[in-house]
Structure formats: C-alpha cells, structure tokens
C-alpha cells in the first residue's frame, strides 16, 4: 500500500494517543504501521502538530512529555472534571446530630452539659467537626472550675437550615407533637424549601399551654 493520506494518518495517531493510556513517542507511533505503510517522520510530526493545533480553545491538550505525547485535560477545566471522582459525602453520626441539636436548643452550653443530657461522652472529633463546619462556635467560658467553653450556634447554621432566627425552630412541645405524627414532619418543619416566615409564624401560633418549656435546669 502506498503512503497514507495525511488525514488518515492524523486520525490513526489521534485515536492511538487517546487509547494508549500512556504517553506515546514517535517511535512507538511508527510501530502501529506495517513496514510498507509506515509514514515518513515528517508526515508524522506534521500530523502531531496538526492535532496539537486542533486543541486550541478546547478543554484538552496534546502535550509532549518526557516519555512522549499525551492528551490531557487542561487545567482550565480540571475544576469540573475533578468532580468525576469526588467522593460521596459521608453521613454525620447520630451523636453529632444530637450534639448539634442540643447546642441549637440549649445554647450557650458546655460540653459537660451536653454529655449530661445525652448520657454519654461527646467525642472531641464531634465538637471539632461542628466547629469546622462553622455551625457551632465557642462564645465564652463558664466561670466554674476548668472554665469550660460555651458553645453556641452560628449564623451559618441558621443559613444552612434556611432559618432567620432560632425562634423558627419548633419548640420542644411541638417536637413532642411532631414526634407523635412523624408522617407529617415534612409538612410542618420550617426550613424545608417552601417555608418562609409564614410557616414559621404558623408554628409560633400553635404553642399551647402545655407546651414543653426550655427549662434550664
């Protein structure tokens, strides 16, 4: 067979470089062709240069590295491409959610108080996670021996859960009712999409005389 058309050569080189999974140098590219079909070195270089030029303005580039040519994603798009391998978000433990709830409802609160209510120790990693997530912060220290840190919820906590103020959280009494009608949870909790001030206000109105207090001690 006579020498290959420039376009066909370019097509073969492009597909081979993409399929190889490793950089290919010119010598290796030559091995793809039977002796009698083997292109001139000049033709090969021209093909590679044309392929490089084709990458102008695209999300990929054809780079020459130490061991050969390799297609790779440009750094301009790597921010998006990287999300292909993003790990799934882990889930928070129940202990963490309980701690968060206690900080929200009983702030300012010390770790010892949380442990007292939960009946189990609160691991340092839970407090650390909540602080790092920015949902909880230390706002002071109680004036008792050891001067324990006082934890409170943050603006970010409210924002994340789409609340304007802590008031929009259901009272413990409402929680008790909701607990009985678990199925209705979706309809009644604020901060779940539809809800804005209106719903939250609705909840405030439902407070009745036997409502659970947030008694402190």
């Amino acid at each position, binding site marked *: 067979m006579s020498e290959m058309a420039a376009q066909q050569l370019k097509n073969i080189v492009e597909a081979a470089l*993409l399929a190889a999974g490793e950089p290919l140098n010119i010598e290796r590219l030559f091995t793809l062709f039977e002796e009698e079909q083997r292109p001139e070195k000049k033709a090969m270089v021209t093909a590679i240069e044309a392929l490089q030029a084709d990458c102008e303005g695209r999300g990929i580039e054809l780079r020459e590295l130490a061991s050969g040519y*390799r297609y790779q994603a440009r750094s301009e798009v790597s921010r998006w491409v990287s999300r292909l391998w993003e790990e799934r978000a882990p889930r928070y433990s129940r202990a963490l959610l309980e701690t968060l709830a206690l900080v929200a*409802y009983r702030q*300012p609160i010390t770790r010892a108080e949380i442990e007292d209510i939960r009946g189990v120790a609160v691991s340092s990693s839970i407090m650390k996670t909540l602080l790092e997530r920015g949902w909880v912060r230390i706002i002071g220290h*109680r004036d008792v021996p050891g001067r324990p840190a006082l934890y409170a919820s943050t603006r970010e906590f409210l924002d994340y859960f789409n609340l304007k103020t802590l008031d929009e959280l*259901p009272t*413990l009494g409402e929680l008790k009712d909701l607990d009985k009608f678990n199925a209705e949870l979706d309809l009644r909790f604020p901060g779940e999409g539809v809800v804005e001030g209106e719903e939250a206000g609705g909840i405030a109105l439902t407070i009745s005389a036997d409502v*659970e207090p947030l008694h402190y001690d």
Partner: protein
Amino acid sequence: MSDQPSHMVEPPPPRQEEMPFAMVLGLPVTELPRDLYIPPQALEVFLEAFEGPLDLLLYLIKRQNLDILNIPIAEVTRQYMVYVELMSEMQLELAGEYLVMAAMLAEIKSRMLLPRPVEVEGDEDDPRAELVRRLQEYERYKQAAEDIDTLPRVGRDTFTFVIDTPDKQSERPQPHVELRDVLLALTEVLHRTEMFAHHQVQREPLSIRERMTQVLARLNPDSFTSFTSLFSVEEGRRGVVVTFMAILELMKQSMIEMIQAEPFGPIHVKAVGAVSEEA
C-alpha cells in the same frame, strides 16, 4: 486410514475382516462415514467443537441441505450414532445428553414406523414435532450467538479512551443534613432523658437562648460594657424583655459578671471567661 487419499473420495474397500470401528445400532461399522474423512487430530478438535446433541444434529441436517422441518429420521439417526460412537471411540468426554438424544431419536424412529390410524391422520402429531421445535429453538440462539460475536466490541473493533487529568482537585464534600434529621436526633435525646415528662410553660425559649448568645458575643472579658448598650430601643418592648431575660439567665449561669458602683449608678457587664478568637 492413514493411507487414504486426502480428499473426499470413495474409501477403499476393507481388505480384511478387521475389528469393527464402532457398533452402531447393533451393526458393526468398519469404516468411517464416507463423507467424513478427517485426520485424527483434526477429528478430535472437530468432534469436540459440537456444543451438544442439538448442535450435532443441526450439523448433520444442514450439511445435507435437509430441511429441519422434514428430517429423514432414520438416516439422521444413523449418522448421529456414527458420530457418537466416534466420540466415545476417541474417548472424548461424552456428555450424557448425547445418549439421551440417541434414545429420543430411536423412539421417534420407531414411532414413525408405526402405521398411523387413518381417521386421525390429519391431527396426528408428527413424532418429530418436539425434536423440530427444539432444533429450531436452539438454532436461533446459536445464530444469535454468532451475531453477537460479530458486533463491534471493545478491545477488538473499538477502543475506549482515558486521558490524564494532571491537576485533579479533590474537594472533600460536606455531608448534607436535613433539619428534620437534627430534630429527630433531638427527640431521641429527649426520649432518653424523659425531658418530655416536664411541663412548664415558656413562650420564647429559643429567642432568649439566641439573645444569650448574642449578648455574650458582644461582651469582652477584659473590659466592661455598659448594661444599657445591650438594649436596642428599636426592638420594642418584646426585644428589651428578651434581652433582659437573657442577661439574667447569663448571670444565673455564671457566664457574665455585673457591677454597679453605687445605687442608681451605671451598670457594667463583662464576660467571665476568656473569649475564644472566634468570638
């Protein structure tokens, strides 16, 4: 048979009374089937290539351009037995299915020989019907397998790509939490502590809690803050009450200190603890 010519010609007549090559239907076979001359090594490969009795039968039928719907049972059975005997002769692993098929063929053959009652001739099931059904059924999947084999496939007709992403950015995603989950967690705690058992009326618990946090955040542990500056008139009476209650609660919980130098003098407030860098 090694001295036989290499093409399909009439085999030479046996020169002597040799040991039968095989016993087929009780008759000795001393020669290979006429249409089957194959060197022994190739024969073995050939025989092993059958995917079972149906495959072998299909081969016999197709080779003679017979129609699957009108199989000459006697002849096909004879040929089938020759192959089966060949296979056992060569000590190929002969699946039991081949013998089951042999029995089935023999049965069909005997039923074909029986005279059919005239009155039911039209309705009489062809004894071959079940065999034909099975052969056709197998044939279509055999063909389908060949078709699938010709489909362009990865690694043979097409190749997939993976290019490198040199600057991968790995961002650890944060867990998502629904407010519901937080509240459910709280009810769990409350159940455990039986806090639900208490019944006291309190109207604005969380706004006081929240205000306590706000007041505390504004106080400095190193210097005093004016008590009145903690109140904002714009908030109205409710706001003032909430702030006042928050301050009382903070005092009760030893979180703040309050100093009044003289009766009716200005009151000053200060946080008691060292305030963290975040506050």
